[in-house]
């Protein structure tokens, strides 16, 4: 059992932070790696990239949006409650090259995954410009932490309720036009990562994305997380989760992420009904 020692709600309760006791994982985890979490006996195994680790305290932190039954079950866990299973750290850690000029682009809960990477890059002496965005002001997360982790921070909202009105790609385009960008890191909804990658390809700027395909074991055993990268099949769990954004077949990934849409909806509806009892 893996006990929750701290819990926060963000973005009007649609996004949850759980700090979980898992000393062995905390001791090994590196930025960019992920966990698999399972709430209870009948639960699904859900991959989530870590937002924070504290080896001294022996804790790991995940931040997730409530989108279906499994994340709804996670949401119902309070401080002192426990996940039945937490497995990790899984996947390859982020490769950080010191002293680079980097632009970090984050959308939605992707900002939670982006944060430790931006911080790691800044600590390694990179000049980190971050651009984070959300649909509106209420859904924006981790602005203060991102400000600390960046040399320069830009905030966008789709509806203009906070920061600059528009998409993160608009700010990114200005930075790319200005030149001098060595690398872009983009983490967020798949369409966002796709459009960032298309844009940076035009400017020839290497771009890293972090993917979250459907998987079961997270150790290379099931092959459910297949993604096409540069025309080759890769496993998101062991080869990733980070890949070269210019090589990823995002359209295929979007279709594969919809494989269980029907079942997911059914499961979530039933869960909502139970919740009302």
């Amino acid at each position, binding site marked *: 059992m893996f006990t929750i020692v701290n819990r926060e709600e963000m973005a009007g309760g649609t996004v949850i932070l759980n700090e979980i006791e898992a000393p*062995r*994982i905390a001791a*090994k985890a590196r930025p960019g790696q992920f966990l698999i979490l*399972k709430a209870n006996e*009948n*639960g*699904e*195994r859900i991959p989530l990239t870590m937002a924070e680790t504290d080896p001294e305290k022996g804790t790991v932190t995940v931040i997730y949006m409530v989108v279906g*039954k*499994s994340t709804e*079950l996670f949401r119902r866990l309070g401080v002192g409650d426990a996940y*039945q*299973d*937490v*497995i*990790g*750290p*899984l996947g390859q850690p982020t490769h950080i090259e010191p002293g680079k000029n980097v632009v970090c682009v984050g959308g939605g809960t992707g900002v939670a995954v982006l944060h430790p990477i931006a911080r790691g890059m800044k600590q390694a002496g990179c000049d980190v410009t971050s651009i984070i965005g959300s649909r509106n002001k209420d859904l924006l997360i981790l602005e203060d932490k991102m400000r600390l982790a960046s040399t320069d921070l830009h905030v966008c909202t789709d509806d203009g309720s906070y920061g600059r009105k528009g998409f993160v790609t608009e700010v990114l385009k200005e930075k790319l036009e200005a030149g001098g960008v060595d690398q872009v890191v983009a983490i967020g909804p798949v369409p966002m990562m796709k459009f960032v990658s298309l844009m940076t390809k035009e400017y020839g700027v290497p771009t890293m994305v972090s993917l979250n395909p459907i998987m*079961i*074991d*997270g*150790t*290379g*055993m*099931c*092959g*459910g997380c*297949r*993604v*096409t990268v540069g025309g080759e*099949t890769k496993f998101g769990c*062991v080869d990733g989760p980070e890949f070269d954004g210019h090589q990823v077949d995002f359209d*295929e990934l979007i*279709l*594969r992420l*919809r*494989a*269980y849409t029907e*079942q*997911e909806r*059914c*499961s979530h509806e*039933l869960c909502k009904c139970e919740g009302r009892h």
Partner: protein
Amino acid sequence: MAVEKTPRQAMPEQPPLVRARNFEEVPLGYTAEQAVAEAGRCLQCKNPACVQGCPVNVDIPGFIKHIAAGEFDKAIGKIWERNSLPAVCGRVCPQEIQCEGNCLLGRKGEAVAIGNLERFAADWERRHHVCELPSRDVATGKRVAVVGSGPSSLTVANDLILKGHEVSLYEAFHKPGGVLVYGIPEFRLPKDIVGAEVACLQAQGVSLECDVVVGRTVTVDELFEQGFNAVYLGVGAGLPKFMNIPGENLVGVLSANEYLTRANLMKAYLFPEVDTPIPRGKRVAVLGGGNVAMDSARTAMRLGADKVSLVYRRSREEMPARKAEIHHAEEEGLDFQLLCNPVRYLGDDKGRLTGIECIRMELGEPDASGRRRPVEVPGSEFTVECDLAIVAIGSGANPLLTRSTPDLPLNKWGYVTANTDTGKTGKKGVWAGGDIVTGAATVILAMGAGRKAADSIHEYLTWGW
């Protein structure tokens, strides 16, 4: 002779059309009367060939003699001397090429049903709990880490705990049992049986920790730093092979590993009672001809498929599956598309599978495996319509653990190099056995490797490397 007059006792089974729609076990097990009658057929050979055919050398005539005398408690005690997982082996061993394949009676008629009798003795014990666990030797103070909790690891754990060592099992999944739990379906091996076997080990003092991915959560070298004196690697093969043909990433194409893990470990056949979904194909194609292919096909039927086709590039004679499984699958209505090889997957504009283009094959000259090599028949392409394809063409070596252990010698395919007689690897204090050494094989061969490794580990802990 009287023995020849008694026919082999048929195993009572669920009727095919009933069982093809449920996940209950197919064979129901012998009654005590049937078991005694079947045991009475054994010739009690002086030099029993059956024992030589058993990878862990169970004293087969010995335990059968006890069953014939109605001494079921003594029968299971006799089996336990050599085999700690009889309820599993009685169900999943390929007896026809092992013990029963060597039975003298089989030369002229039907072999003694050794597997069925082994299963009977184990099931009888599980229901009555009259037998005492084997006694443990004096504690040695030595600690052994066993990585993985499949059949070879469970055998190592059993043997070493009895020899007085401390044993810790580490499992990457959230449940112990390895392939017995994620791979073999409920209708062939009920999960309660695996649970009971593991609980039995725990009762003897084996410690078990799930959710530990050795290679990630902890490395082999760190296990030594933590004070373990020896490490056994029984992690299985665990890397699904794909056809590498166009369209393989369409939605609806799954590895058998994924399909069976969803169904077995995650119990997705109970969805939405449990949270893990599984695709319920109406027309299903299973690629391959081994036990995993049979398990996948029969699972698909039970999940409500209208038609399940087995696409296999050789002929029936070359199919590596256990005979009983092929027979069961056929009774349940499996469609065999033999001498037929997939060329590419076909999909719709939503990226979902609609069919597989296949080509007919004919058998040519024998290849390196001694089986006749299938050759394409030009112009014979045709389409197998399906909305779900399960790729069951074998497994490779999963590199997750081995890559984190750079000084562990591997062969060119990535399997761990280990001595066949001892399981010793090229890294001091480390043994390996089962599929991570041999490539995908059977439960009993993995157990045989575990037995040899346990003997060697015990020798090392007593006398040194």
